[in-house]
């Protein structure tokens, strides 16, 4: 019981202002403003909230001057106060432009730290020559810390502009370290292969076999046309330029195996980049009459009656998209698929 009373006394001594002009007053005013702002709305609330922040900033600034938190000969007060000022000024922009808050924090802290040297008893003065060097060192160190923060945001910008970079392995870098919290988002290549699959289904699923073969021949002769029609659906931004889509046709009998590779050709930990593969089977479906299917549309019907509109049709079955594989792409198994 006595112990509890002691603790209460200590807290009371800490919080209650010893005089009207002390840091406790400011902090209490800040709390008061915050509570008041919660009760009102619109402009008054914003105004009161701002006042709350300002009181808090000055209160903490005063507090850290009276009871400095010292780390290695340097009072940490300006950095705490500076953090509060940065949050107050730029906290609202943390979603659109988070760099503002972090980059301004060391600069504001440095400005706060040098104020005592420039103001003495409410008058401007020049700092003493001895301390000028140290002030310069203080300011410059904080500028460099700001630059470090900005570097982080520059790299973030790169990763957002070229999401294909994320699949790579950053171990060889001299500059960055990657802390993975969750598995990375699938790269653009997956989207590319999905679109390609959709396009393939439109063109090749449930068609007459001769059309299928004609289409495959056109792909073999002009592979870029398919690639372009897929890429066009993606829109034109920096990263799409760095993805290539390659289509390989492997003849089976009588089916065809279509292999699509989406390759990342941008900066990568492997000089060859990485690729994703998806394999699609184009299966010939025999016509419902049950006669033996003839793979060749030009073969005249010999055995059985094959009505002209009952030629074989196609069906597409696509496998899953592979995980990103680094290194050079595998060679095609055969050079020229022959379309009979």
């Amino acid at each position, binding site marked *: 019981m006595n112990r509890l009373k002691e603790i209460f006394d200590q807290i009371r001594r800490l919080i209650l202002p010893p005089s009207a002009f002390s840091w406790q007053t400011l902090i209490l005013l800040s709390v008061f403003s915050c509570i008041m702002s919660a009760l009102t709305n619109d402009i008054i609330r914003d105004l009161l909230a701002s006042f709350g922040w300002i009181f808090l900033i000055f209160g903490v600034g005063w507090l850290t001057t009276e009871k400095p938190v010292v780390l290695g000969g340097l009072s940490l007060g300006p950095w705490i106060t500076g953090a509060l000022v940065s949050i107050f000024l730029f906290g609202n922009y943390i979603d659109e432009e988070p760099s503002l808050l972090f980059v301004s924090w060391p600069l504001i802290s440095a400005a706060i730290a040098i104020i005592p040297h420039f103001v003495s008893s409410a008058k401007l003065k020049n700092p003493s*020559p*001895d301390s*000028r*060097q*140290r002030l*310069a*060192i203080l300011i*410059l*160190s904080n*500028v*460099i810390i700001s*630059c*470090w923060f*900005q*570097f*982080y945001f*520059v*790299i*973030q910008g*790169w*990763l957002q502009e*070229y999401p294909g*970079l*994320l699949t*790579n392995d*950053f171990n*060889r*870098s*001299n*500059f*960055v*370290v*990657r*802390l*993975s*919290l*969750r*598995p*990375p*988002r699938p790269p653009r290549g997956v989207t590319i292969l999905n679109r390609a699959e959709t396009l393939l289904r439109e063109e090749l699923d449930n068609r007459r076999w001769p059309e299928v073969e004609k289409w495959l021949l056109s792909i073999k002769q002009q592979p870029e046309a398919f690639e372009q029609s897929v890429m066009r659906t993606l829109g034109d931004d*920096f990263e799409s*330029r*760095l993805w290539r889509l390659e289509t390989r046709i492997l003849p089976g009998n009588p089916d065809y195996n279509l292999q699509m590779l989406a390759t990342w050709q*941008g*900066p*990568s*930990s492997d*000089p060859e980049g990485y690729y994703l593969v998806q394999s699609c089977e184009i299966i010939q479906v025999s016509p419902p009459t049950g006669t033996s299917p003839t793979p060749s549309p030009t073969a005249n019907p010999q055995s059985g009656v094959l009505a002209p509109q009952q030629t074989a049709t196609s069906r597409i079955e696509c496998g899953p998209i592979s995980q990103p594989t680094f290194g050079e792409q595998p060679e095609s198994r055969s050079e020229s698929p022959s379309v009979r």
Partner: protein
Amino acid sequence: MASVVLPLRAILLQLLLLLMVIGIEAFVLQRRLKITRRISIEYSASINLLSTAIGWLVLFGVEPLLPPALKEQLISFVLFNAWLPTASSLFILVGLATFFVTLTVEAKGFDYLETLATGKKDEPSYQKAYYRTQIQQREVSDRSRSRITTILLANACSYTVILLVLFVSSLGLGS
């Protein structure tokens, strides 16, 4: 972002290099210019911090303006430590430019810092020198010449050490 990429290695590398460079240059300054250790460390620290800060600002200024091909080379260098042989000559050019620009910045910064620290302007302005005696004139020009030489020497030493460290670390990390 699903995973977080932090430039921690860059920060550590820079801290290490800065400490080394400040130490080496302070040592050279102290020996040649006969100033106390504390002052030489302070000079060296402020000048090197200044040139590092300017370097960062140049990087942040140039990076958005790069054409996509060069930007990809930069990204490849920063994130994967890999670049095309065609970019090597650009790197060498940038290295040389850095050396000479930091030399200039340090020479000018040295003068400026001295003004800042001592609170009075330094002598070698040629109008004043005109009225001096021959001996004093020669002293003044000797002094500024030896200062430039000292700065040159200090920078040369520190850059050599930097290159050695980077070379050894690249050997250690493998190809």
